[in-house]
């Protein structure tokens, strides 16, 4: 029963609404935009935005967090947000679709993003600049692919690691070149 009470809407905003709203904020919508889409005003949205994470913190079964992840991944299908998109370049929107349809493309960019941080860059901003993909869409893709990637790892752990290592090597090289090499490039055995 307590689980049910934790899933009750907050000011009429369901967990599905909330998760999709978070994904859309990650993709560049403002608080005012999402509040409007949900049929509420900003103070009401802000309370829901404060209280849903509290519910997650209180839930020791992780049920709400799990559902949040699922709904987050399905944000594009949420009826209240289906017509709302932040302004993006046409090239960007192509990649936004691609990252949700092409698993390898997602996996490669996920590694690129991580490596970018290791080279002192804001990885999320780099992905946005280079591919026009906002963080929210990136996270949606992460949620969409997570089950399949998990299966891939179980089916062929070595193959998975080899691909990841190859991506890492590629982007380490790229970012190292861009900064004039690594600090210890001249040190050899």
């Amino acid at each position, binding site marked *: 029963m307590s689980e049910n009470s934790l899933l009750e809407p907050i000011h009429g905003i369901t967990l599905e609404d909330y998760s999709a709203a978070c994904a859309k904020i990650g993709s560049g919508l403002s608080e005012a935009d999402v509040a409007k889409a949900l049929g509420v005003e900003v103070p009401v949205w802000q309370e829901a935005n404060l209280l849903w994470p509290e519910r997650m913190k209180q839930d020791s079964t992780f049920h709400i967090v799990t559902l949040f992840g699922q709904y987050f991944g399905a944000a594009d299908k949420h009826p209240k947000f289906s017509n709302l998109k932040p302004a993006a370049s046409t090239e960007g929107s192509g990649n936004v679709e691609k990252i949700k349809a092409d698993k390898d493309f997602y996996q490669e960019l996920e590694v690129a993003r991580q490596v970018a941080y290791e080279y002192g860059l804001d990885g999320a901003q780099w992905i946005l600049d280079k591919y026009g993909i906002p963080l929210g869409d990136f996270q949606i893709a992460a949620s969409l692919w997570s089950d399949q990637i998990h299966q891939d790892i179980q089916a062929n752990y070595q193959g998975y690691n080899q691909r990841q290592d190859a991506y890492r090597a590629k982007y380490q090289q790229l970012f190292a070149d861009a900064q004039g090499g690594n600090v*210890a490039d001249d040190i050899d055995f």
Partner: protein
Amino acid sequence: MFGLFDKKYHNPELLEMIGHTQERWFAFLDKLENRMHEMCTAAVPEIKEVFNQDTDPYKRAHGHMLMGLHGQINQMRQKANKTKEESIFYFIDRATTQLPDFISSAGREYHDKLRIFRLDCINRHNIFEEKIAWYTLMLNNAVEEQDLETFYQEQLAAFEDIRNKFICKQCGGNIAIAKIFFIATYITCPFCQTQNTFTPSTGAQMVLHQARSLAEQRTAHLLKAYEASKPKNSQLYQQYLRSMFDEWNKIVPDMATENEKFYQRMLHDHTNSINHY
């Protein structure tokens, strides 16, 4: 026939190779460590400067710079690991296959030499790893913790300055704001009863997100006392947790009800983890 096993095995070339490889490995790690030292000591004042100049409330310029430096340390670690596999372990494996059998006295001497060589190389590598940990900490501790207390007090003072300065957008009457708000809310005009929407300053809204960290800063000494206790004294942890939540609730009283539920969960998690021992 048995005499064959006792025939002395000599391979001075291998001994020389072992000595030479060990020297190279030690020198290689020395060089990496020197470079790490050079980079990190030069980086500390730069990190401080970037941190102090970073006007971003999340200190993201500082964060990215720090991650970049950790990335370079990690790059050196990768280099060492790769060399350990390809030049040390591979060399040992190949040499091992060429030695007489381990159970012969002739073979045993050389197997022992390789074993000791392997251990020396691993020990040297462990020292390298310890240095990595040391320099990592040095970079992380280059700046003091962000002073959340001062920021919080500034926000309280800023609120005192403005709390009586708002007027109702409908009737022009004065609206005194009863207490500090950290999120947008509706405030009723005492004269015309119109619902005004009050949006706190960005700084006040930030307090909500920093409240827990500030409460943790205020009670850090209690957590330290718990962590220093041997064996771990659960009583001390519970004291810390209660005080931390008390401080948290003092900073953002509006969240006290929700915070208490979270407190119960953390207390529950703690007692459960102890029962496992």
